């Protein structure tokens, strides 16, 4: 079988380990494709995809658009800031209007958790969640796990620490689901105010001391402080956060072992990561970006293929 168990990719929670491995195997083939002289295959040439972004994005939107174009799909882009959403249209009306123009797949980012799940109950097009509020960001988790697999030869049995603003991070939640399904051990680390209550119910370890987390892990996935989602103050100042939770070269050298540093971007240099770490050979941040295109191609290809 080379088919996903789901029609949509709404979250990692809904898919199986088998689905994830199928996506990875397909992504490996696409990684070879995007390193060819002509980086394009005709698979999705009769498919139209709408990228609907109700929230800002650079990397994810660009990565999806490149993935779609390298599969020869027709692409339309929509961003809320320049649209009729401002004039008071509902989400369902906006999307139905786009679908009336014969769109086959929708890639959506929205600030409300569950927005793509709501849509999936009302429209027939395949939906890929490109981030819904603080809930899930499935393709990011897939590309993170794919990058770990590529760097360390596998995910099962590896120790991964997710460090930073866990409370506001959809990347953290999707990563926890993906890594657990693939058999990794997961730890979250951050200031107590930025760790969700009952997070250990998901089967993850909790650590408040960043140095202990780094000593434990094979891979550190470092997250950004999402100031735009913080309505109240969770810590005294960015300087203080950086002092206690920022990762710099000196801290890494004190571990006496090599660990892998990941970051989903955008990096706030000097806050969660210092430049000498972000640009060091510990870091696979740019590999993550390259793998993002291959993984998204695999997801689009497998979802579109099952539609027929």
């Amino acid at each position, binding site marked *: 079988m080379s088919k996903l168990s789901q029609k949509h990719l709404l979250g990692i929670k809904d898919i199986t380990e088998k689905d994830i491995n199928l996506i990875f195997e397909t992504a490996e083939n696409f990684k*070879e*494709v995007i390193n060819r*002289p002509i980086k394009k295959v005709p698979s999705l040439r009769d498919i139209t995809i709408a990228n609907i972004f109700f929230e800002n994005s650079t990397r994810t939107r660009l990565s999806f658009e490149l993935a779609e174009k390298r599969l020869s799909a027709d692409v339309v882009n929509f961003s809320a800031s320049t649209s009729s959403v401002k004039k008071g249209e509902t989400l369902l009306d906006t999307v139905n209007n786009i679908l009336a123009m014969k769109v086959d797949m929708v890639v959506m980012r929205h600030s409300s958790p569950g927005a793509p799940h709501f849509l999936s109950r009302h429209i027939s097009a395949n939906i890929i969640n490109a981030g819904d509020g603080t809930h899930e960001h499935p393709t990011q988790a897939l590309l993170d796990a794919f990058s770990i697999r590529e760097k360390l030869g596998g995910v099962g049995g590896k120790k991964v620490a997710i460090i930073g603003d866990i409370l506001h991070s959809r990347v953290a939640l999707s990563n926890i689901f993906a890594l657990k399904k693939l058999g990794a051990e997961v730890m979250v680390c951050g200031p107590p105010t930025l760790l969700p209550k009952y997070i250990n119910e998901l089967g993850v370890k909790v650590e408040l001391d960043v140095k202990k987390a780094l000593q434990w892990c094979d891979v550190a996935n470092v997250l950004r402080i999402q100031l735009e989602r913080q309505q109240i103050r969770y810590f005294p100042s960015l300087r203080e956060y950086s002092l206690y939770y920022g990762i710099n070269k000196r801290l890494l050298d004190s571990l006496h072992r090599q660990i892998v540093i990941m970051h989903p971007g955008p990096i706030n240099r000097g806050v969660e990561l210092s430049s000498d770490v972000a640009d060091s050979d510990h870091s696979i941040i740019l590999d993550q970006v390259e793998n993002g295109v291959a993984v998204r191609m695999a997801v689009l290809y497998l979802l*579109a293929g099952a539609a027929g």
Partner: protein
Amino acid sequence: MTKRKKLIFDSDLLDLTISRLCQQLIENHADFSDTVILGLQPRGIYLAEQIHRKLEKDTRKTIPLGYLDVTFHRDDFRRRETPVKASQTRIPFVIEGKKVVLVDDVLYTGRTVRAALDAMIAFGRPAKVELLVLIDRKYSRDLPVAADYIGKAVNTLPSERVLVELEAQGHEHNRIWLINKD
């Protein structure tokens, strides 16, 4: 449902045929200085490897061998129940300006070869492309495709299937069968 199996190639005949195909290639490509071999995934690669080994031994030359996967160039995407699983493409050499010999085990509708031509040009513009197949299923083409080197041309019905068993694929003997699916 009775399943009839007819042997069309045994090990000895297969060796003989591969030797003949290699001689034909040598006739046309002389010293192989501008020739590369591309085996089509997933099953053409075993034959390609066997031919490549024999050619290198007979000519005492190094001949580039690559694998080409056509999955993403197929014309039946979204038209079958489950998508075909992709295999690895590995072409660690330049094909621009070269003579390419595509190798597959069975030529049937010609659609795989069409996809292969499409997939191949993503790597450059070859000077010439030839097709080598072990089994040519006659009168069953959907597209105007013909092979340049043929192991054996066989009359088949659409209800029949050609089963290739090679030692390189883990089978006990090299054998090729014609199976009636009805």
